């Protein structure tokens, strides 16, 4: 019976299709279920980082990719996200500005650098160097700036420094244009 044989031959294919269909349903379902919570968490994470950077923060506005930080009525500063091209991938950095010339501080949001070497860009000896710096001085010391690169992680260090400086300059220009 050729019809029966054809069915028998097609069975593995049909089964695979069913398995894939179940997998897709399961994935869509989980995605729907978790998407809102995940987004809320990502926002909470940024908010926690902001309030750590600006301890007096009571609220913030988010417009044109710039966070403006307020304490009651007073403006405390600005913050924005800078993206650097690191050794292992993108480095996302939250940069806080005290005013239009001074860095308040930076926090690394995510990075994919070499564990034990490039990952030291997230640690305080490196990131504390940015606190209170004039934007003009955000450069590696070999280029005449104020930041000491991490030994044997020059690419990661330079990526952070360049991203912070260029993005800060862009944002400051944008802020000045708005006024």
């Amino acid at each position, binding site marked *: 019976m050729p019809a029966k044989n054809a069915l028998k031959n097609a*069975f*593995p294919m049909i089964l*695979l299709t069913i398995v894939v269909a179940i*997998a897709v349903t399961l994935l869509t379902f989980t995605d729907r279920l978790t998407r809102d919570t*995940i987004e809320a968490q990502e926002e909470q994470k940024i908010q926690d980082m902001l309030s750590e950077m600006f301890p007096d923060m009571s609220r913030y506005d988010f417009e044109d990719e710039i966070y403006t930080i307020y304490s009651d009525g007073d403006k405390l500063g600005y913050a924005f996200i800078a993206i650097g091209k690191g050794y292992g991938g993108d480095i996302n950095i939250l940069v806080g500005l005290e005013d239009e010339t001074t860095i308040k501080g930076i926090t690394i949001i995510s990075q994919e650098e070499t*564990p034990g070497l490039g990952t030291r860009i997230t640690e305080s000896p490196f990131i504390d160097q940015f606190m209170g710096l004039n934007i003009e001085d955000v450069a590696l010391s070999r280029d005449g700036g104020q930041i000491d690169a991490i030994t044997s992680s020059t690419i990661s260090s330079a990526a952070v420094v360049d991203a912070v400086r260029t993005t800060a300059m862009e944002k400051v220009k944008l802020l000045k244009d708005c006024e």
Partner: protein
Amino acid sequence: MGKFGKEFLKGLILSNPVFVLALGLCPVLAISTSIDNALGMTLAVLIVLIGSNIIIAAIRKYVPGITRIPIFIVIIATLVTVVNLIFHARFPDLYESLGIFLPLVVVNCIILGRAEAFASKNPILNSIADALGITVGFMLALLMISFIRQILGTGNLSVFGYDFGNLPVLGENPIVMFILPPGAFLIIGLLLALFRRTGVMKGE
């Protein structure tokens, strides 16, 4: 001690996934740079391997021979993604520390290797024992490699933020190469050679 104990114990030495089966070497090379990473990866493997071994042992009688590999791959990839999303949403702290390891588990051939070599031929309970044994064996190997690489490559021994301090000499001048990929190849190769030579672990 029964079949369960036997299937568990064989994963530790006799079929140690890294040193004997030489499975999952890619993630081992990539993440064996610190003890923190070793433990994080172990936890990710444990969760996914138990899940995939149970599912595959449960459906083993219905899966036709020719399409079993694509079916296993779809099941494992789905499982990893679902676990990843649920962790991201429900256990954000754990996700923070496991975040980079869970997606890596997809390409970890230990999972597919055990599905194909064990879970597709054995009942559920034994497959759980196999998953536990293989994970512990994986952890032992990974800890050994990470410990050596972390000590030589950074001269520092810190585990989960608890710092045991820098070592003399090495702390000042760490041999950075051991943190980088060449160091991983060297250490794994030397350990493999040592275990074969001394007869502690023999190839299957």
